[in-house]
């Protein structure tokens, strides 16, 4: 069994490879030296995708058969010329059997039907009637999470900061906001149902109506497809944080709380991951092998991943450039012996 972890940072990507049950890791890189690597994925054919960005040179998408030699796609998602919008970064790449979705900043959703060679704007979302009320959060105005129901690809969720969560039931032809019950962060004068700063979104793979929502203002769950949301914070050290990940096999959830939106450091300087094994009804702190004194780094929303093995591996990359890996569903952790630049994204792939 081979496991590959792609760590995207502010200055390059790095590949961590393990051939022996996730106990030893070989580090390759830097890949894309000098570039931010903001998202990585692998499509059903086994081809890897990586999104790069630069404050100078803009954003692009690259493909590779082995995550070593990469080719830049000639065309990526792009706003129309003179449309007034800039494509600053690709936040997420979501391949399905037939399509490839990209969520971007300045917020928008793009789709490719030819494996990324050409792209089209999902106008129904990108020109949504509420667009005039879309405002950025501290992380920008970004479509950072896209969920496709594996049993019904016409049901799509898209999370946009600091706007909220949209749901489509018709493959993206139309979108409805699903924000009722979520407190606003940036309230628009006209569109009262906007201004929700969603940080992360994961779906129960067996229940299309159950979605977990890591929000600026707390941790929420819906069991009715987003019609209503309830808080699920019992046991968490704090209501604030960015990433959320789920083990598809056991439905265990993982989050990394930060003290507050004002401070954004681990509570009490103790770096802990929290796990829920009951759909968010309760949370347990995971500490073994994680620094519990003077630890002031955070984990960004795309920098937490799970490999869905038995037991699952959990992988996180911190803003201090440290990578921690658990091979036992989070019960214990070890640090990769390297200090990377600020980590933006972590993805894991198993063969």
């Amino acid at each position, binding site marked *: 069994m081979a496991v590959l972890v792609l760590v995207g940072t502010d200055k390059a990507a790095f590949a961590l490879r393990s051939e022996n049950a996730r106990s030893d890791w070989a580090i390759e890189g830097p890949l894309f*030296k000098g570039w931010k690597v903001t998202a990585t994925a692998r499509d059903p054919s086994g081809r890897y995708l990586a999104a790069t960005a630069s404050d100078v*040179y*803009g*954003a692009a998408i690259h493909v590779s058969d082995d995550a070593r030699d990469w080719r*830049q796609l000639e065309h990526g998602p792009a706003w129309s*010329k003179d449309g007034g*919008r800039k494509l600053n970064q690709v936040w997420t790449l979501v391949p399905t059997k037939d399509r490839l979705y990209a969520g971007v900043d300045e917020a928008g959703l793009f789709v490719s039907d030819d494996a990324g060679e050409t792209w089209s704007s999902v106008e129904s979302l990108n020109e949504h009637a509420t667009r005039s009320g879309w405002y950025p959060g501290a992380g920008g105005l970004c479509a950072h999470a896209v969920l496709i129901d594996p049993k019904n690809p016409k049901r799509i969720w898209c999370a946009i900061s600091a706007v909220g969560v949209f749901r489509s039931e018709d493959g993206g032809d139309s979108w409805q906001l699903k924000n009722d019950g979520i407190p606003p962060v940036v309230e628009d004068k006209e569109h009262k149902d906007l201004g929700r700063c969603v940080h992360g979104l994961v779906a129960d793979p067996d229940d299309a109506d159950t979605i977990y929502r890591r929000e600026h203002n707390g941790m929420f769950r819906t069991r009715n497809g987003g019609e209503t949301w309830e808080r699920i914070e019992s046991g968490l050290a704090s209501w604030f944080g960015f990433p959320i990940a789920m083990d598809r096999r056991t439905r265990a959830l993982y989050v990394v709380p930060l003290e507050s939106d004002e401070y954004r450091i681990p509570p009490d300087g103790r770096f802990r991951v929290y796990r829920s094994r009951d759909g968010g009804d309760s949370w347990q702190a995971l500490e073994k092998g994680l620094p519990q004194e003077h630890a002031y780094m955070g984990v960004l929303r795309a920098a937490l991943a799970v490999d869905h093995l038995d037991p699952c591996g959990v992988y996180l990359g911190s803003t201090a450039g440290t990578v921690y890996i658990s091979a036992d569903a989070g019960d214990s952790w070890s640090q990769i012996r390297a200090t990377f630049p600020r980590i933006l994204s972590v993805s894991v792939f198993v063969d």
Partner: protein
Amino acid sequence: MLTRLVNGRTSIVVDADSVGGALRSLVKDHPGLEVHLFDESGGLRQHVLCFHNEINTRWLESIEVPVAENDTITILQAVSGG
């Protein structure tokens, strides 16, 4: 950062009559460069520096200025600070 898109080369010869023409010729032969040099308005990206010999093209009214044989066009990041 861009040399990986031109097979590692740091110097490329193009045929053109103007600075703008030279840049268009460059991206025609190496289309992957286009998104990195030009933004959505079609102009050079804000932090991309382009010199025609020793003249910063931002000082020019237009990049459609004529070039002579063996002129040099240099593309750099505008980097400053820490």
